[in-house]
């Protein structure tokens, strides 16, 4: 069942026809909006977001074909049915080229119109069913606010379950936006310390001179401005968990003290001679390569080895694309709920665009794009146009050459022209090189099936791409 009634926009300069269509479509549970002129109808399109438009070919001022063209620009996924008193071969061909769903002659065959409206309704229902399945699956694959059915995420969840009860220190690594903080929180929530304190310190946000005091506290009068004795986060988190985010930013002067705290559970407030013992689980996170930092002498090796006894590495989103539909479903549900809106998901074309993007900002970026699209959208299902607009607003979403890529490779589509073919050849060549010639892997990276990849390679005469040829074609 559709969440709310699908909308039909009927455009005809004859009020009697509009009355007939309105009466008929309402019986089929469509919400109907009638307009007598193409111009006023087009002004409504972006607000109303109809699922289907029924438009007379011969309208005064703007013709039905012009209305069809304009709708294609605003909402490519809206179904358009043309109607006319005199069908000519030329207009029929033009309408089909522009992607009209059908062409009806007058007097209207109500049975046929009914069948077309049923087709539109079924298409929406099918999409919404799929989206609901995605949302349900997302719930099933949710673990402590993280979602993933990919092998990488399932392994991660297993590791968290295994480590949480025992590990004293854990290093969480991964690119920005991969959810390191969620992992840290999950380790706390799943472990036996879940009822104790969980404190977070973002190491990149603390002034270097105050670091030691922040972590270990200070005695009154130990430095200028220290008007009171203050407990540091280590003491404050005693018995619980301390999450040190961006630990790679930790100043060298504090590193030996952190090592002592982690290794022996000993902390010393600034200006105090007394050593206190604290029992704190320390979870650190970084998007830097700490091993390389340690090798280059920018991070203490002994601290690195101590912190990385248990390391959890988070896979970037581009390497677990199968999770994108579930993440999208979950983010849409969350945003719609917060905004008190009925948004059920994204269209197939929008999903393809989301699948093909490279996501350097990972899940955080995907979430921001979905949130922006929800704000921009007026419709029940987010369209490709809205998603692309939201991606364009993202600082790092898709680099320019990639922006066109989601549209370049589409399942079952023909190579449209030479200009596009060369872009596709370059894209496929590059991805094949990245996958070292492995077609299954290349198809996965491109977000298409292996069969489709072979079909495209065949059409583009790409059989001669050598993985070591730098994506060049022979």
């Amino acid at each position: 069942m559709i969440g709310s009634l699908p909308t039909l926009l009927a455009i005809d300069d004859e009020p009697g026809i509009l009355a007939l269509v309105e009466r008929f479509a309402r019986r089929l549970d469509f919400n109907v909006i009638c307009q007598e002129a193409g111009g006023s109808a087009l002004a409504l399109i972006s607000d109303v977001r109809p699922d289907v438009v029924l438009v007379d070919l011969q309208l005064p001022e703007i013709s039905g074909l012009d209305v069809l063209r304009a709708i294609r620009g605003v909402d490519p996924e809206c179904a358009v049915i043309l109607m006319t008193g005199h069908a000519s071969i030329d207009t029929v061909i033009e309408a089909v080229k522009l992607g009209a769903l059908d062409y009806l002659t007058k007097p209207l065959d109500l049975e046929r119109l009914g069948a077309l409206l049923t087709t539109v309704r079924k298409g929406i229902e099918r999409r919404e069913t799929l989206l609901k399945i995605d949302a349900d699956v997302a719930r099933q694959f949710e673990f402590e606010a993280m979602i993933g059915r990919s092998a990488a995420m399932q392994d991660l969840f297993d590791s968290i379950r295994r480590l949480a009860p025992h590990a004293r220190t854990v290093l969480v690594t991964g690119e920005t936006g991969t959810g390191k903080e969620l992992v840290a929180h999950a380790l706390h929530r799943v472990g036996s310390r879940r009822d104790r304190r969980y404190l977070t310190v973002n190491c990149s946000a603390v002034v270097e001179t105050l670091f030691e005091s922040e972590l270990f506290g200070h005695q009154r009068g130990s430095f200028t401005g220290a008007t009171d004795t203050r407990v540091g986060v280590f003491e404050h988190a005693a018995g619980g968990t301390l999450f040190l985010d961006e630990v790679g930013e930790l100043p060298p002067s504090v590193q030996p003290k952190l090592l002592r705290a982690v290794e022996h559970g000993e902390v010393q407030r600034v200006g105090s001679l007394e050593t206190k013992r604290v029992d704190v689980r320390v979870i650190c996170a970084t998007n830097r390569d700490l091993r390389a930092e340690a090798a280059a002498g920018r991070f203490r090796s002994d601290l690195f080895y101590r912190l990385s006894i248990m390391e959890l590495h988070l896979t970037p989103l581009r390497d677990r694309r199968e999770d994108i539909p579930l993440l999208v479903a979950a983010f849409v549900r969350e945003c719609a709920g917060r905004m008190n809106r009925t948004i059920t998901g994204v269209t197939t074309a929008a999903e393809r665009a989301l699948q093909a993007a490279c996501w350097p900002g990972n899940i955080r970026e995907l979430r921001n794009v979905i949130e922006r699209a929800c704000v921009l959208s007026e419709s029940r299902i987010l369209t490709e146009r809205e998603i692309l607009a939201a991606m364009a607003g993202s600082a790092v979403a898709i680099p320019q050459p990639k922006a066109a890529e989601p549209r370049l490779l589409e399942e079952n589509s023909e190579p449209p022209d030479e200009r596009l073919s060369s872009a596709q050849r370059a894209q496929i060549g590059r991805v094949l090189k990245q996958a070292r010639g492995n077609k299954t892997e290349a198809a996965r990276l491109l977000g298409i099936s292996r069969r489709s990849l072979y079909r495209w390679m065949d059409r583009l005469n790409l059989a001669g791409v050598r993985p070591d040829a730098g994506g060049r074609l022979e």
Partner: protein
Amino acid sequence: MKISPDRAARWRHDFKNQLGIVVGFSEMLLGEIEAHDRHRQDVEEIHRAATRALALLADLETEGDEDA
């Protein structure tokens, strides 16, 4: 009285629209009213006459084309 072909075509178009509306509404009514409803026969008459008129209009169009 002589009328221009353009005007004749427009009249035919408008006439067809109006008849189409009569046929369409009567068709919907026939789908809604019961077989034993006392109005059913009347609506059937309306539907039949309008459909016949549409057919006549089509004949007229064919004849017009032949004359031209």
